């Protein structure tokens, strides 16, 4: 029941340039194909290199297919968040197959359910690597699940593409981090709010686990380095639904900026109660790094309108890559769907892997890991990304203002790509 061998549906159109490239590829292959007799005359795969040359480590690669894994929670409390990632990864795989696959091989995926249970993630990761011989795995969301699978990927030498913005302080040969690490997401946003809103005092709050706590630590260091003040810092258990007390404290301390890193369903309670308590987000500046378009669906746009979010991607980004991406995503998964930051980062995974495999000329994990630094993906919906030596992405940081219709209006972006710095000096 948990294994799903369905090949991704092929009827999707890739980006326009991709389609053209495929046509050219097909035309180039045509003369050769017509000359060859029998089973070798497969136009799309005519130039595919021999399996023995591209796979020397026993991965699940045949002459026409390559197998990868998708490992997310589709049951349990994290299903709400990870559904978007699964959809994005399936879309990317379908588009890549539409273009002729990777090294002439169609991607087949096996989907496993982590079920929001960290030991289970480790089990399933082992299954994907050892039994299924997956050439790459796209998955995980919480830091807890990533920490659980990390030793498995290092022991069995697998390749993981991890899509979530996270706290940093980690780097592995076997992982490509396609979301932002903490400094990329936080520093530019705080600089922006200090400059634009003349903010002098901050109230930090978050859910009580590693990511919000580390992020707030970095935020506090940065705030205090600029001789500004933190007037309060507070954490709540996951799933907390009563924020009246902290809202009272915010009213009493009157901070210039509320800096909120609350995750999941708690957000709904927090923003609804904020509004009910008479805090007007058009007058009171609130910056969040944890509310994407997905969470707004639950919060309700009218409850969060006016808040600022600081991340690298918003569905409303105005560029041709993103337009094609949003259109393809909605065509595959429905018009009413929304796309948040992590969903986009998950979409990058299969594409970066394809580009890396083609640069390396091999599916072998060691070669893919070695070829990863410097890989560029100009067609990324967020604009353009490049893989750093430390396996994180260079990316722009953007500030979006929440609107009542549930979308963000992008009001600021860094001029240049920010360098990923998972081990920031002085912030640990």
């Amino acid at each position, binding site marked *: 029941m948990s294994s799903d061998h369905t090949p991704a549906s092929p009827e999707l159109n890739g980006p326009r340039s991709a389609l053209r490239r495929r046509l050219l590829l097909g035309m180039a292959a045509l003369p050769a194909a017509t000359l060859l007799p029998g089973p070798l005359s497969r136009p799309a795969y005519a130039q595919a290199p021999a399996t023995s040359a591209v796979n020397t480590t026993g991965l699940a690669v045949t002459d026409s297919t390559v197998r990868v894994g998708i490992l997310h929670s589709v049951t349990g409390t994290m299903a709400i968040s990870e559904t978007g990632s699964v959809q994005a990864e399936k879309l990317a795989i379908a588009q890549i197959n539409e273009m002729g696959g990777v090294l002439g091989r169609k991607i087949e995926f096996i989907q496993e359910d982590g079920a929001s249970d960290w030991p289970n993630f480790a089990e399933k990761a082992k299954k994907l690597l050892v039994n299924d011989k997956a050439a790459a795995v796209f998955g995980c969301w919480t830091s807890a699940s990533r920490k659980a699978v990390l030793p498995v990927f290092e022991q069995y030498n697998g390749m993981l593409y991890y899509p979530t913005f996270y706290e940093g302080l980690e780097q592995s040969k076997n992982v490509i981090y396609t979301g932002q690490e903490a400094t990329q997401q936080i520093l530019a946003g705080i600089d922006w709010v200090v400059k634009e809103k003349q903010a002098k005092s901050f109230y930090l709050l978050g859910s009580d686990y590693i990511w919000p706590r580390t992020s707030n630590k970095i935020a506090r260091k940065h705030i205090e380095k600029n001789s500004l003040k933190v007037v309060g810092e507070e954490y709540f258990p996951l799933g907390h639904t009563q924020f*009246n*007390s902290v809202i009272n404290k915010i009213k*009493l301390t009157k901070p210039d900026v509320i800096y909120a890193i609350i995750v999941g369903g708690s957000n709904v309670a927090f923003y*609804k109660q904020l509004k*009910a308590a008479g805090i007007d987000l058009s007058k009171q500046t609130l910056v969040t790094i944890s509310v994407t378009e997905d969470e707004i669906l639950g919060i309700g746009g009218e409850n969060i309108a006016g808040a600022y979010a600081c991340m690298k991607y918003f569905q409303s980004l105005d560029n041709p890559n993103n337009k094609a991406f949003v259109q393809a995503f909605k065509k595959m998964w429905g018009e009413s769907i929304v796309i948040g930051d992590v969903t986009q980062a998950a979409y990058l995974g299969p594409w970066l892997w394809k580009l890396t495999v083609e640069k390396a000329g091999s599916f072998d994990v060691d070669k893919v890991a070695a070829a990863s630094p410097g890989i560029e993906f100009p067609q990324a919906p967020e604009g353009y990304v490049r893989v750093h030596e430390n396996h994180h992405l260079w990316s722009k940081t953007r500030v979006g203002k929440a609107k009542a219709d549930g979308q963000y209006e992008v009001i600021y972006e860094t001029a240049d790509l920010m360098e990923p710095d998972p081990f920031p000096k002085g912030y640990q």
Partner: protein
Amino acid sequence: MFEGYTLAELGSIFAMQGFAGLILFSVFVLMALGLAIIFGQMGVINMAHGEFLILGAYITYFTSNFFLNYIPALFSAYFFVAMALAFVGAGALGMLVEWAMIRHLYRRPLDTLLATWGLSLILQQFYRSVFGAREVGVELPEWLIGSLPVTDVIEVPINGLFVMALTLMITIAVGVLMYRSRWGKQVRAVMQNRVMAGAVGIDTERVDRYTFGIGCGIAGVAGSAFTMVGSTGPTSGQLYIVDTFLVVVFGGAQSLLGTIASAFVISQAQSTMEFFLSGSMAKVLTLLTVVGILMLRPQGLFVLKVRR
């Protein structure tokens, strides 16, 4: 812990926290009443209580959408319709569950725990398949949004007042039903001695079914009310179940008065501590206190004297 505040500030802090505590108290009572009836009166440990609550929330969501799309003129009144539908919907499902599952498990409380836990998983998956894994947002009518300013620091959220009023009404209704009506007498008779109650002509099966149904129906109304402050998703019900059991057990399972008293104590303690300590710390201290008191008084705050 009080340093840094002036006396006037401390005054408004306690006023605000007291009020925040009252809202929390109402939420606790709404969550716990349905459970207390089922657990206290029938001895069934209903682990699916949170899912009945979320059913009420989903019904509210669909009612609000229906009003928004088809009769927008009456949108400001949809909440009352939604609460009635939530009561009927959750109550009907409750009676169905009682008939199909619970009635075979009376006198085996640990088995009801397992069976209803399974039921909660089934319902969660059902919600996920039917409504989708993502959370949904329920739009509130205009009159429920905003707050009444009392002083320049103290403001009273209107939906908080609404929840408090609703809690008061439901509590009085349940009180009258249990202690003043013929049906309430039957429920208490069945609970105290099932065989004897049957012998004097009470239809015990029917009483069980309606009791379970009403308990679940109240959970549905609570879920409907929580759409104002909480999240609505397939697993949101899980967020409430621990707090709910805490309130019921601390109060003494068989006493509705105990449930209310324990909700009051826990909510006020937590609210006041939350202000001077951190949110997580307040929760830990509350739990420790409850555990400490339960060790001294295992039967809870209030005990019903019953001859065994």
